[in-house]
């Protein structure tokens, strides 16, 4: 899990760097700071389980086992990317590992996750679906419709709310009278759990229970992970709306730093072993960058392909 979290962190740092060098077209929404959520969730999943993702989706892909090279190439708009350059940062998918794609319409992935859960149920498999969305998305009608339906039909869906306190620049307290998104769960007859989203083991444990429940056909769970973006909402955002003290407080709770300390304390790894993991991970990210940068752009006429099967 540490290795995966590092992969995401180093990957996102590189994306930011490449962006600064004008190598990334369009915009980016970085996952840095929220790694414990994606990794804590996906470490509970099998390859044939599904996830749905959001505009801030790089971390979800990597945690589910996506290829770093193809992910980076897609972000750079290259032919070798997961979607052959048609999707970009906000639309990465890898159907071969159950990553059903990131949708950039806030809240739109939630009913799609419910559909994948229904499909698993109708096909009599014990696959589960983890559905990632932010606290902002929980104000969309789709959240309320979908969680209701998943509960009524007892579908194997784990609703994972990544509450990073801000919907773009809007503080949660400005648009919601409640503190916990999980408080909405009882209204739909579904268990709601709040966890420290910067503690990968806490996330892992909560999701483990939800996955067991889902596989047994006992229905969905809503897990709210309290977390924080290290950076702004997107490339243009310096996040000046966040008070300095708040940022410092959360940076001190950095999920990777905390997990590293825990691993050393528990003597799971020596300092040396951890440094080796860090060096290996950095090298893998470098390889992915090189692959992506060296890959060709798609042929322009490729724009006309893939509209219909």
């Amino acid at each position, binding site marked *: 899990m540490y290795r995966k979290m590092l992969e995401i962190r180093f990957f996102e740092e590189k994306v930011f760097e490449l962006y600064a060098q004008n190598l990334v077209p369009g915009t980016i929404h970085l996952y840095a700071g929220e790694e414990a959520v994606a990794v804590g969730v996906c470490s509970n999943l099998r390859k044939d389980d599904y996830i749905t993702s959001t505009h801030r989706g790089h971390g979800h892909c990597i945690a589910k086992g996506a290829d770093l090279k193809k992910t980076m190439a897609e972000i750079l708009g290259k032919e070798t990317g997961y979607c052959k350059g048609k999707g970009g940062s906000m639309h990465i998918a890898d159907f071969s590992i159950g990553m059903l794609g990131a949708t950039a319409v806030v809240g739109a992935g939630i*009913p799609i996750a*419910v559909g994948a859960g229904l*499909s698993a149920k109708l096909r009599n498999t014990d696959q589960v679906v983890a559905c990632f969305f932010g606290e902002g998305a929980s104000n969309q009608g789709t959240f309320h419709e979908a969680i209701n339906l998943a509960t009524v039909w007892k579908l194997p869906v784990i609703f994972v709310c990544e509450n990073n306190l801000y919907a773009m620049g809007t503080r949660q307290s400005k648009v919601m009278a409640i503190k916990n998104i999980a408080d909405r769960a009882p209204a739909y007859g579904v268990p709601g759990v709040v966890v420290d989203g910067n503690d990968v083991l806490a996330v892992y444990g909560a999701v483990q229970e939800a996955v067991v429940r889902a596989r047994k056909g006992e229905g969905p769970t809503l897990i709210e992970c309290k977390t924080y973006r290290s950076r702004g909402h997107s490339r243009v955002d310096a996040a000046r709306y966040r008070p300095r003290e708040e940022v410092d407080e959360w940076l001190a709770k950095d999920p990777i730093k905390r997990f590293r300390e825990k691993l050393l304390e528990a003597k799971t790894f020596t300092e040396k072993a951890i440094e080796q993991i860090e060096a290996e991970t950095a090298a893998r990210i470098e390889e992915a960058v090189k692959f992506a940068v060296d890959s060709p752009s798609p042929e322009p006429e490729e724009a006309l*392909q893939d509209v219909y099967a």
Partner: protein
Amino acid sequence: MRKITYRDALREALREEMQHDSSVFLLGEDIGRDWGGAFKVTEGLAQEFGDERVRDTPISESTIIGTGVGAAITGMRPVAEIMFGDLTALAMDQIANQAAKIRYMFGGQAKCPLVIRTPFGAGVNIASHHSQSLEAWFMHVPGLQVVVPSTPYDAKGLLKTAIRGNDPVFFSEHKLLYPIQGDVPEEEYIIPFGKADVKREGKDVTVVATSFMVHKALGAAKELEKEGLEIEVVDPRTLTPLDKHTIIHSVKKTGRLVVVSEDCKTTGVSAEIAATVAEEALDYLDAPIKRVAEPDTPIPFSPSLEQYVIPNEKTIIKAVKETV
């Protein structure tokens, strides 16, 4: 040949495809055993196939379609019913941004065999929220296929093709068509998309009409025959893909075109067909193209108002005469 209703033809298509393929299932509001669909298309199917495969949903249009998308991209073949076409507005993100684009955005990885059935059309005095014809909205979304069957035979054959395909289909059923009877063979058949049907041959004027308007056009053609005018009625049957070839072939023969569709004239179905002919066959036209469509108003309630805005035999005859 035996005659059955449009409603029964649709139900037969659903039943046959459900028998033929266990991944086909239905979802929608009130489609299950207690009601059988607002227009009774799915009546009896829950009893036959069980509640797991004929699923009553909450009133959550966006999630009906979103659930269909999620099921479709993971190996199922859902057929979703939206009770009235007007209510597709509630599910527009899932239809236009998700179902239609999911294949393209992900570089061809996904297939999304989702069929969305919904009744459109005016004429039964249920006013602005239950009477529109919005097919043109969906023609404007690459990735969707738009089907507008006018007869029981076409309805059955096209619905079977829709369910078997690998792309999302918008399947529009005009609510006045459900009770009409027509020839439908006992043996199995399918109708490919993108193949128009010449519903009546004629040499003088081409009338391209869709859905319920095909019957109005045929009525007008009968009247005009008495005056010595031979009208060719072309029914595109699918708007996406559109069979330009058959339409242009007919225009080359007659040199005159009237397009009839029951929707607002501005950027409507008739606009696209007229523009296509103007672009690709202008030299064959002996008269300006005429369009018969609804004025740009919502559908009103009172019968006198409603009938005023819907195209009919008289308005079609008038337009045809203006081309000759």
